[in-house]
């Protein structure tokens, strides 16, 4: 029997008495884009942190292709194919846009411990980095220092870095938040293209219902740290538990 690309079993984390993620068991097969929804504080980002390793779980497990990874350090998980874009922009602020992306591709190419060549001599890495920048429409800002970049562009770069990593498991945490109406479609289109690849899966935390409707193959709903609904978009959206737990409360959040 083949294993799903990503699975969590009874994944739990407690902060003091507060259960931020409450025994979530969920399977993410390759080739599927799953939207993760839930009101603020539901535990979506914390769930991501448990999968990508920034937080160690109190209980439960995370498996990639059947292998337990929930005790591995972050970098090892990245090697196993877990890639993450962050809700709060998380870049290398005093380096250029290009350098940010290049660092990611260089990591993927396992060139980090190369001490005696010049970084600029790695033509393939450079070209790949430029290609990614072109894809997200940031090539014009290539040599800008990231901290001088407008917020919307920083958000785009955040996504670009995940796309540059080209992992097996893509985790986007509200990728279009803070982007203008004409920037968001570029990013959403890139995410949509990922669906063509049947070897990868995409996890997408998103509040915008129209985005979810067009992109998601499936929706899971978190509420108070627990998984309260899981299914295809139309069923989940019309179910009463979601109407109550999420849609009702979070109306103010739907942009």
């Amino acid at each position: 029997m083949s294993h799903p690309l990503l699975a969590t079993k009874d994944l739990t984390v407690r902060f003091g008495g507060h259960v931020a993620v409450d025994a979530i068991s969920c399977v993410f097969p390759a080739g599927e884009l799953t939207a993760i929804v839930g009101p603020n504080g539901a535990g979506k980002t914390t769930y991501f942190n448990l999968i990508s390793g920034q937080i160690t779980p109190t209980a439960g497990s995370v498996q990639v292709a059947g292998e337990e990874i929930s005790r591995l350090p972050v970098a090892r998980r990245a090697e196993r194919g877990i890639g993450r874009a962050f809700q709060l922009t998380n870049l290398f602020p005093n380096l250029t846009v290009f350098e940010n992306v290049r660092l990611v591709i260089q990591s993927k190419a396992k060139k980090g411990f190369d001490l005696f060549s010049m970084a600029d001599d790695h033509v393939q890495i450079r070209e790949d980095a430029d290609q990614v920048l072109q894809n997200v429409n940031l090539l014009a800002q290539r040599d800008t220092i990231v901290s001088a970049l407008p917020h919307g562009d920083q958000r785009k770069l955040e996504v670009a870095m995940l796309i540059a990593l080209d992992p097996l498991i893509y985790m986007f945490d509200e990728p279009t938040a803070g982007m203008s109406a004409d920037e968001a479609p570029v990013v959403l289109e890139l995410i949509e293209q990922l669906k063509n690849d049947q070897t990868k899966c995409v996890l997408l935390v998103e509040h915008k219902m129209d985005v979810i409707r067009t992109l998601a193959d499936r929706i899971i709903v978190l509420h108070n740290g627990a998984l309260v609904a899981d299914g295809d978009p139309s069923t989940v959206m019309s179910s009463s538990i979601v109407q109550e737990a999420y849609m009702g409360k979070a109306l103010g959040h739907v942009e």
Partner: protein
Amino acid sequence: MLKHILSGDMPRSKILSLVLVVIFLGLAFAPFLFPGTRSLDTAARICIFIALVASYDLLLGYTGIVSFAHTMFFGVGAYGVALASVHMGRGFDALIAGTLAGALVAAILAAIIGLFSLRVRAIFFAMITLAVATAVAVLFSQMSGITGGEDGLNFKIPRAQTSAQKYLADPVLGVKINGKLLNYYLMFFGSLALILVFLRVVNSPFGRVLQAIRENEFRAEAVGYKIVFFRTGASIISAVGAAVAGSLYAIWLRYVGPDTTLSFEIMIDILLMVVIGGMGTIYGAVIGATIFVIAQNYLQNLMVVAADATSSLPLLPLIFNPDRWLLWLGILFVLSVYFFPKGVVGRLRGERK
């Protein structure tokens, strides 16, 4: 060609290039431009401290690691050469063996400290290095049977590197062509080689990762870099660089003691030089070390001149009293940090913030 030698790291500013060329030529022709034992000694110190400060900047400026153990590695290299020369007898083999042994010990020490403590928070790492460096300094000054204690060790270097050895009967441009001159060029080219190696390292893929870790270790890890290994790697390279600079220093002085290598004052000097020159650029080390060593050696002379010139005026001679040179150095430092928060190099490159 030049771009390749500098590993693609061009000065990126006309004035900076000019300053660097002046320093380079000044040091390359120091024996001819500035005759006299004292000037040659200053020039050699500048060469060695440039290499020492650059190796420290690899940690502080590039990787964002604060360490107080840099003088310890400097000392390990210096004592290596001294001990080898004392026990093996004067000779090139002793110098080479001492340098290699010092570098090896420095690398091992750095690896141990790094792997054990670079996982912890930056402040703890700084404290641990401080503790280890202090312990080593005490140890070296206590084990007088081996290290000569507070008195240190005097040793002989090969005759070919001393003024007793004449290479030409007649002076060239008024300078005696002897072993001492040769020894100076060992310092010059040794330091130059170290600088070029550091330039390569910081511009390599590895160097880029170090910068990424400095900028955002959290993200660096998330894209797959195992930061403990990179930090430890940087510490090891930096330690080896410091040790080799220490070996050169011992060879130049023909002496090693706690005050010339291990003392906390030198650690402070290194920090000042990095900050004055500009962190996170090897050229900052070049400029910082040059300014600092010259100020250290000549500020007092300058003040004697100033005090004499103003002797008829009230108050000023008091301010310029040579005994107050440390005060002036302090003022210079504060001013330079205030006006050049990114160091001289940052300023010359026109960087803001």
